[in-house]
């Protein structure tokens, strides 16, 4: 079955919700519409069921299965909202809206480089599945790792950790340099410092890079103009504000002003 319409905020049944690393959870829920509409790099809004916490928690889509109609997300517990989600279990429901956002533009090329940092790695999984050609996958973590085995199905995976607990001791960027990583397209998601470094890295090599940004959101579907980032523009200021939730979260690295 294929659903061609984003059905808005609705209650989805949880298939499972497990811890996969210290403070990191993988949640899988049923959704015909999201699983059939989702594009890599898009996200969903999760909502708290506690009346005092109103705003959406945007979480990137990690993987979907259109046939079995499920959606997988991976999220870190960083505050009250994600903590609440982590306590949900199989059979319970969660309010979800999506898919939202402008995902990665998947371009065919010989070698694609995928770079993820921390909870920025999950959205690259569905992407890795869908890109054709050779894929060099660089995953960075503070400590430990997750999803690495899944990624290995789709490409050559290299891991870097800040504390050296796994793979290369250092950042993904130093690892990429060390490996003389080379390709025609870069797809990245992760913390701002990583994206900034990648912007430079790609710029120096003149490789097209697509970066997925984060910002605090009011609505998560383009209505409030609350989630803006600076995008280069030909005006006096040299930039304009674009919505991360609607114009992004994925932007061309050349456009982004950090």
């Amino acid at each position, binding site marked *: 079955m294929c659903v061609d319409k984003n059905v808005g905020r609705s209650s989805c049944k949880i298939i499972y919700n497990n811890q996969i690393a210290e403070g990191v959870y993988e949640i899988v829920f049923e959704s015909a519409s999201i699983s059939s509409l989702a594009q890599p790099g898009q996200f969903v809004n999760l909502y708290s069921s506690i009346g005092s916490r109103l705003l959406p928690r945007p979480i990137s889509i990690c993987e979907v299965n259109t046939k079995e109609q499920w959606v997988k997300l991976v999220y870190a517990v960083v505050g009250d909202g994600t903590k609440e989600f982590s306590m949900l279990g199989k059979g319970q429901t969660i309010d979800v809206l999506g898919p939202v956002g402008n995902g990665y533009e998947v371009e065919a090329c010989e070698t694609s480089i995928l770079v993820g940092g921390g909870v920025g790695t999950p959205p690259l999984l569905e992407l890795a599945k869908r890109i054709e050609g050779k894929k060099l996958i660089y995953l960075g973590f503070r400590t430990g790792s997750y999803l690495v085995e899944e990624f290995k199905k789709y490409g050559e995976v290299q891991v870097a950790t800040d504390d050296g607990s796994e793979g290369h001791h250092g950042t993904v960027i130093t690892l990429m340099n060390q490996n003389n990583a080379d390709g025609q397209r870069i797809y990245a998601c992760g913390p701002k410092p990583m994206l900034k470094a990648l912007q430079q890295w790609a710029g120096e090599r003149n490789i097209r890079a697509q970066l997925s940004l984060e910002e*605090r959101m009011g609505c998560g579907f383009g*209505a*409030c103009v609350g*989630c*803006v980032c600076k995008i280069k523009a030909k005006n006096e200021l040299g930039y304009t504000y674009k919505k991360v939730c609607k114009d992004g979260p994925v932007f061309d690295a050349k456009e982004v002003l950090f």
Partner: protein
Amino acid sequence: MNLSVNIAGVELKNPVMTASGTFGSGKEFEQYIDINRLGGVIVKGVANKEWLGNPSPRIAETYGGMLNAVGLQNPGMEVFIKEDIPFLRKFDTKIIVNVVGRTISDYCEVAERLQNEDVDLLELNISCPNVKEGGVAFGISPQMAEKITNEVKKYAKQPLIVKLSPNVTDIAEIARAVEAGGADAVSLINTLIGMKVDVHKRQPVIANKIAGLSGPAIKPVAVRMVYQVAKAIRIPIIGLGGIMTGEDAIEFLMVGASAIAVGTANLLNPRATMNILDEIETFMKTKKIRDIKEIIGIIE
């Protein structure tokens, strides 16, 4: 069952509108709701020229509410006229343009430019707490509020709603002033001024430091102000502030609002207005209210 209400000569098919800044010009909602069902759409603030808005972060969550300091980012009236009016005109609903400016002449320029455009009502926003220029100052002084209303009236062809700030000692006084200035209706409330600190980072959560508080947390303040204003003026009132449900909407009608606007609730659930409409209809059916006007202002 009759849900229609009249605001300054404009007949709305029902009293449910969308609050400025929380619905864009409706494009983001088209896939979720039937815009034809809305009594009216109050679009986001429109200035004479493009406004960039405030830096990020612009949004914070608070207990039962949210803070925003968008700072009225908008592409200016020409883009609005070219893109948003034709979009909205596809639907059978009223178009209300929220007008913003830095000086009185900015406001007048927008009103004048809209004279021959297909717009049903203007809403003068003199109450945005998120921009340093003009806006706020006009909303907190009765003299200034009366003056700007009076000036803009000279250029406005459509009836003029003035949107009031709740950040004042005596909102009834401001309402009387804009009524004296020639306003055809008032809308209230805009956001309360609030602030939130990230105690870990030791800095305000919002780049602009102070921001506008909206959402269900502020509803009791909004209901009280609508009640007070309803006792003070004779022009119609559009009530808003924290409306999440049909019963919330009815509270505002009962204290004297002729119509209501849904703000933050749109952001939390794009179908909020439809649910609210359904709930109002159910309420009327259950209570055997044939005309919504029966309950407007029934609280003494």
